[in-house]
């Protein structure tokens, strides 16, 4: 697929060449199993421990608080289910937000079917969790608070430090799904009172199929995957050495360039948002303009539907994403867009464009021109637009 303008970095990212270079020895000659006694395996073990350190460094954790998993979904499931089962005799109430990723939301819904009680705390129309609602939801039998660090659809950054302080003051375990935040914005698990944190390599130009769960040393967590003595007996399975090494390298690179990249990304993001809102009528920005990930643009266009928008920009070589139901295989549009108060028909008409440090202004300019054409074409085909014109609403 040459010449694609890739604006779907929240879905997955391109492996950085330096990351692939770091992985290559472990995809070829250094193929040992880190659990083995022999040097051939031990060498791989050392490489995994180096990666663990780079990852811990990025969030001010200790090396032995990082547990490798297969990705963000596994980490979320592990964190939430293990706390639930470990604490079930103490209480069965879990608090989460209305804008979680499916990996958290469906896990909580599963637990609700298993006899736990789940409170989904709402967000305001800017997509920021309502702290007073959160506080009011806490009960004596609340065992876990799980709130997404930065939302994957609308990019809003949550008041994690405040939530951490609340959880800590009540002695409740605090998990955050930081899959979109890790390596993108600064995180400090100590200062922010985070007990458990999920991350995934493929969102930071690392490889797919590897993630981690940060488990604060004071928290005892049961394994979700039982078996061999890997990961200090907490997560069985032969270590994905190339994946882990790549994750480590990606974390290291993210740390080194985060500040500089973000200054640039925020400029580009705001430029694109301003142009779209100005040049395309009946468009709106979803999610807070400032408390949002540097690379996230999420816009709704009235009267048109997201999947067809995506397909049309795709034909112009632009890869993006939508909160429309049609695109996800479900029938309802994104629960996140509904949570910020969008009516269904506007939620269906959203498009998410997520940038990386490789995104250029030229690409954005090209994309905006494409969007203008596509939106106009789809509106000309839309019965909703026709009605609005007829009713002189537009």
């Amino acid at each position: 697929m040459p010449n694609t303008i890739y604006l779907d970095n929240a879905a997955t990212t391109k492996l950085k060449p330096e990351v692939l270079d770091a992985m290559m020895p472990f995809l070829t000659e250094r193929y040992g199993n880190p659990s083995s006694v022999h040097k051939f395996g031990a060498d791989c073990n050392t490489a995994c421990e180096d990666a663990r350190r780079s990852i811990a460094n990025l969030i001010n954790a200790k090396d032995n608080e990082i547990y490798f998993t297969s990705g963000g979904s596994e980490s979320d499931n592990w964190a939430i289910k293990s706390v639930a089962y470990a604490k079930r005799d103490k209480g069965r109430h879990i608090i989460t937000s209305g804008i979680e990723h499916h990996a958290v939301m469906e896990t909580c819904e599963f637990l609700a079917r298993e006899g736990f009680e789940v409170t989904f705390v709402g967000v305001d129309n800017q997509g920021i969790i309502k702290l007073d609602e959160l506080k009011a939801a806490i009960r004596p039998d609340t065992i876990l608070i799980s709130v997404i660090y930065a939302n994957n659809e609308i990019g809003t950054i949550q008041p994690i430090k405040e939530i951490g302080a609340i959880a800590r003051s009540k002695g409740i375990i605090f998990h955050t799904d930081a899959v979109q935040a890790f390596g993108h914005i600064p995180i400090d698990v100590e200062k922010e009172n985070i007990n458990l944190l999920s991350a995934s390599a493929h969102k930071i130009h690392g490889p797919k199929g590897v993630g981690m769960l940060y488990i604060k040393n004071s928290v005892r967590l049961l394994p979700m995957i039982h078996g061999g003595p890997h990961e200090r007996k907490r997560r069985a399975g032969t270590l994905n050495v190339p994946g882990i090494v790549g994750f480590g390298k990606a974390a290291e690179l993210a740390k080194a360039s985060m500040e500089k990249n973000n200054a640039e990304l925020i400029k580009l993001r705001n430029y694109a948002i301003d142009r779209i809102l100005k040049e395309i009528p009946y468009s709106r920005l979803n999610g807070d303009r400032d408390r949002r990930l540097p690379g996230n643009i999420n816009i709704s266009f009235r009267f048109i539907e997201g999947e067809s928008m995506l397909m049309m920009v795709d034909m112009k070589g632009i890869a993006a994403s939508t909160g429309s139901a049609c695109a996800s295989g479900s029938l309802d549009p994104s629960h996140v867009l509904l949570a910020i108060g969008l009516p269904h028909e506007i939620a269906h008409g959203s498009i998410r464009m997520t940038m990386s440090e490789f995104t250029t202004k030229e690409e954005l300019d090209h994309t905006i021109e494409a969007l203008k054409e596509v939106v106009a074409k789809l509106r000309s085909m839309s019965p909703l637009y026709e009605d609005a014109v007829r009713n002189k609403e537009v």
Partner: protein
Amino acid sequence: MQYSAKVMDHFTNPRNVGEIEDASGVGTVGNAKCGDIMRIYLDIDDDDIIRDVKFKTFGCGAAVATSSMATELIKGKHVNEALKLTNRSVMDALDGLPAIKVHCSVLAEEAVRAALWDYAEKKGIKIDGLEKPADDIHDGHHEDLGECD
């Protein structure tokens, strides 16, 4: 989820997009809540032949492609022929649809029938085998239609 080449063709170059002024019949089905609305305009002559047909659709790729194909399939046909259009025939003509998109072809069938019903009503005739569409809507702003199917 992957679309057939035919679907992609009808999505990329939809046939019969537009409106018909003073149409013989207009039908609108679906609702914005669920993300699909189809509107079909018919121009029918005195011999009950569909001389022209146009559509407008708010919806996904499959919604656009099924609308386009449905209009192609009934254009130039007698209304009795048009009545025989089923979602199956639309899907077959498109070389199939992903499972989660089958409802779009149902919508296309319903849109045609809704437009024919409107034609029958306007003309004050009864067409055999045609019933009043259950969810024919005319403004697309039914936020209270309940669950999507």
